[in-house]
């Protein structure tokens, strides 16, 4: 069920990135895609009634109940990378707006061929 929702977010993001005319909406679409993949990674490591992967009460308890910490580390890295990409995208959007005076992708068309 949750996986289906996650997939739905991914598809919405992809649709948004590919079909929207407003460049800010395209960036939002990209961000949605990234977040759905992050969500998917976290859910891969989840187990029912799991505890935080911090070793407090011995190794046996940790192995039996803790969620997988590796995907969480990956997601942290991936969020930071996503921040970089989004910041870059927004910076380009601002510059584009200064140059063209519009956010509409149909009017930003000087390259052809």
């Amino acid at each position, binding site marked *: 069920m949750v996986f289906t929702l996650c997939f739905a977010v991914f598809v919405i993001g992809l649709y948004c990135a590919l079909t929207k005319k407003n460049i800010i909406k395209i960036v939002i679409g*990209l961000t949605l*895609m990234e977040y759905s993949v992050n969500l*998917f990674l976290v859910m891969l490591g989840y187990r029912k009634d799991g505890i935080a992967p911090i070793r407090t009460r011995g190794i046996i308890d940790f192995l039996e109940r803790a969620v997988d910490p*590796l995907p969480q580390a990956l997601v942290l890295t991936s969020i930071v990378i996503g921040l*970089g990409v989004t910041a*870059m995208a927004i910076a380009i959007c601002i510059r584009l707006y200064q140059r063209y005076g519009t956010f509409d992708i149909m009017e930003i068309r000087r*390259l052809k*061929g």
Partner: protein
Amino acid sequence: MKELIPLFVIIPLGGAFLTILVSWKFKRLSDIFGIFATGGLLVCAIMLPVTGTGGTYNVGGWPLGIGINFVIDGFSTLMLIIINLVSFAATIFSISYMTQYSAKYKYYSLFLLMVAGMNGVVLTGDMFNLFVFLEIASIASYALVAFGCEQEELEASFKYLVLGSIGSTLILLAVAFLYGIAGSLNMAAISTALSGIPGNLLTMFIAALFIVGFGIKAALVPFHPWLPDAHPSAPAPISAMLSGVLIKALGIYALTRVFFNVIGVSPFFGIVLMILGVLSMTIGVFLAVGQWDFKRLLAYHSISQMGYVVLGIGLGAYMIAEGGPVLVSGFALLGGIFHLANHAVFKSLLFLCSGSVQYATGTRQLKEMGGLKEKMPVTRFATTVASLSIAGVPPFNGFFSKLVIVIATIMAALYNPVFLVLTFFALLVSFVTLVSFLKVLRYTFLGMLKDTFRQIKESPAAMGIAMVFLAVFCIGMGILLVPQLREVLLDPAVDALAGGLKYAENVVAGYIP
């Protein structure tokens, strides 16, 4: 030599930060930083085959399976040499060329970050680490494409960023699925885990995600629309880096590494790659013929020449998976890999030449040029050499690699006559390429000198040195096919791919022959 391995990431990454810190105050130092960093990397890369076998390096001393490891085998050695050779030439070229722009130190900083990302992609033995380095190189290249901040550059960069991020997200999703199946991120461990599971729908889905993701990064034909905008818009040395090595390191290298050594090749995958290759070759070259913008024409030729590489690698993958003759698969892989190396050299040289012409005349339109042959002898020499190389005229390097690919397709046709189609396309595309580059030479250097260009001068010495440096490689690289030299560079690269899943055993043993 094992001790050299971390240097390939440390030098450019440290150089990038030092450049921006120090050159903030002392702007003249940025050139020196750039030259020393890329020059040092080139020396390290050449040391690799000289000192012998490859190896693995565990980052932070963590054992295999827990930490990240860097792996050097034949294919990564070859890629490292190409990347650092081209980046060294591009840095020399930048010394003069980038004086047109302000903020040169920011340029060097981004440039070194991009090199760090590419070296990391080539070295890493960990799937998630591959994604991280891929994003470092990609983000740096998005910024570099937009470096001039003019209208076209921003537009091209935005297009590149959107498609590039979609590609990266698909790759990350595929990595997540792989982790879900194999329970590890280490390439060797995944490879071992997957070999126990028969191929099913999920592995097909992962393979499809990787093909689309890396296909976008490599600009194979259905995924190519960003490339003809992004590559011409960047400053010339960056175009040379993007077309010369970025699409190879991030696209082709990563794709082949993942398929040959981690997931394992299948006949279906080989056929998909061959179709993508033939599509890229033909569509790329026919779009290139009609172009009048010098750099845009070169960008379309990049798509077309990458088609040759993918065709060679796809044919090799098919033959390995089908259990065809080892000779054919070896030849196809050799052709693909050798063409990859050659294309890096001549295409970056061509982009540097286009930058030199643009520096002198201020235009990229072929129709506005003409008669530059006496004004710019060095550029003319370099452009002629590179054009003949890309068109596949003998003694230049492009001829040899195309010859090997054509021979491989003919040998494959003996195995199954259908492959004659590939031979036909390879020869046709080669011919159209020749026609297209005759047009370039005719319109830039021959003909009447325009009155507006009476005053132009040859480009500064640094740019000339960079172009001649690469031109020498264009003329001389054919000798890499001589058996004694082939054992040093090309054969280990082919063996690394043809060995397939033996990669895992080698990595676990920590010794790569």
